[in-house]
């Protein structure tokens, strides 16, 4: 028997999908061609969040793990399903990657490298910090700026790309997320949750692309309603009793 010098770190790549038949085939192909950095092994899990298109068939044909939610639960609960799977199957890391092709699989390495360097429990792939391959509307940027400011106020840590859904969870973060990952607008809210639970949060610049299909989980981002809702959710996460 071969004796391996180092234990392979198993990484679950979580891909939440809601009607992503347009972008999913090429994304899955890119993922399968990916060579994991030394010391890591990758497994891919498509979380099909009640899609009504061919998302399930595409994922099944690609031979990846597929978790079919019988009804549409929203992005937060979909990611949580992935985290539950990672926890139950003892993965040491989980990486969330959106199913719409915004997050190039090649950038996964950046998250892993940053994690190795800092040991942060939550690593956020950030589209800001000097990279302008991703264009955002001014309103959206203002909204993100505001939420980032609010998070700074509540956690005294500056996270620039607070709505980024490209993120790495370590074992502690998987554990916490499996129990209480927020529901509706999970990205900004979960940062408050993780920070309050004493988990270290890091942010690393990655290259992002425009979405290739599907719809953002954050529609009408600039609307006052969205901002009010997220603000309320963040404030309550900041004062809520932790389990």
């Amino acid at each position, binding site marked *: 028997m071969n004796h391996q010098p180092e234990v392979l770190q198993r990484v679950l790549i979580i891909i939440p999908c809601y009607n992503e038949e347009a972008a999913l085939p090429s994304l899955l192909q890119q993922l399968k061609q990916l060579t994991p950095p030394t010391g890591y092994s990758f497994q891919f899990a498509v979380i099909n969040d009640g899609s009504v298109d061919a998302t399930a068939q595409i994922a099944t044909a690609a031979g990846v793990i597929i978790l079919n939610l019988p009804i549409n639960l929203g992005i937060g*609960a979909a990611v949580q399903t992935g985290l539950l799977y990672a926890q139950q199957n003892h993965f040491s890391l989980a990486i969330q990657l959106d199913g719409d092709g915004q997050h190039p699989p090649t950038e996964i390495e950046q998250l892993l490298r940053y994690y190795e360097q800092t040991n942060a429990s939550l690593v956020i792939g950030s589209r800001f910090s000097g990279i302008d391959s991703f264009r955002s509307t001014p309103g959206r940027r203002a909204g993100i700026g505001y939420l980032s400011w609010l998070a700074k106020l509540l956690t005294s840590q500056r996270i620039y790309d607070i709505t980024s859904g490209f993120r790495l969870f370590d074992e502690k973060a998987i554990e916490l997320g499996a129990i209480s990952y927020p529901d509706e607008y999970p990205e900004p809210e979960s940062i408050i949750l993780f920070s309050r639970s004493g988990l270290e949060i890091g942010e690393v610049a990655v290259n992002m692309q425009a979405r290739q299909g599907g719809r953002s989980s954050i529609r009408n981002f600039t609307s006052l309603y969205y901002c009010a809702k997220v603000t309320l959710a963040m404030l309550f996460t900041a004062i809520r009793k932790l389990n």
Partner: protein
Amino acid sequence: MARIQIITLITSLLFLAYIAWLIVKGRLREEYAIVWLICTVLLVVFSFWQDGLKKVTALFGVEVPANLIFTGCIFAIMVYLLHLSVVASKLQQQNKQLAQDIALLKQQIPNHDKHGAE
């Protein structure tokens, strides 16, 4: 008996019968029916006890009886709506957990998705 008393009484009794019918048919849970039953009983009581409304109004220091009715009703409705929101939130949470469990369990069934994903 004044005409309005008869109308109120008949309406209340019909309402009561309808609630009973819903419970019998299994379309309304008893716990939610309690509020409606209490409301109907109050209506019946006040349709018999004509001076009652005036006395209760005086007790609260309200000048016009109609104002007491409206204020009381609106408050009761608001409390009940809040209660229903709490119930809906709880249901949503349970619904989420059920869906997640189903997804995870289905994944454990070998070859499940090869025979047709939904």
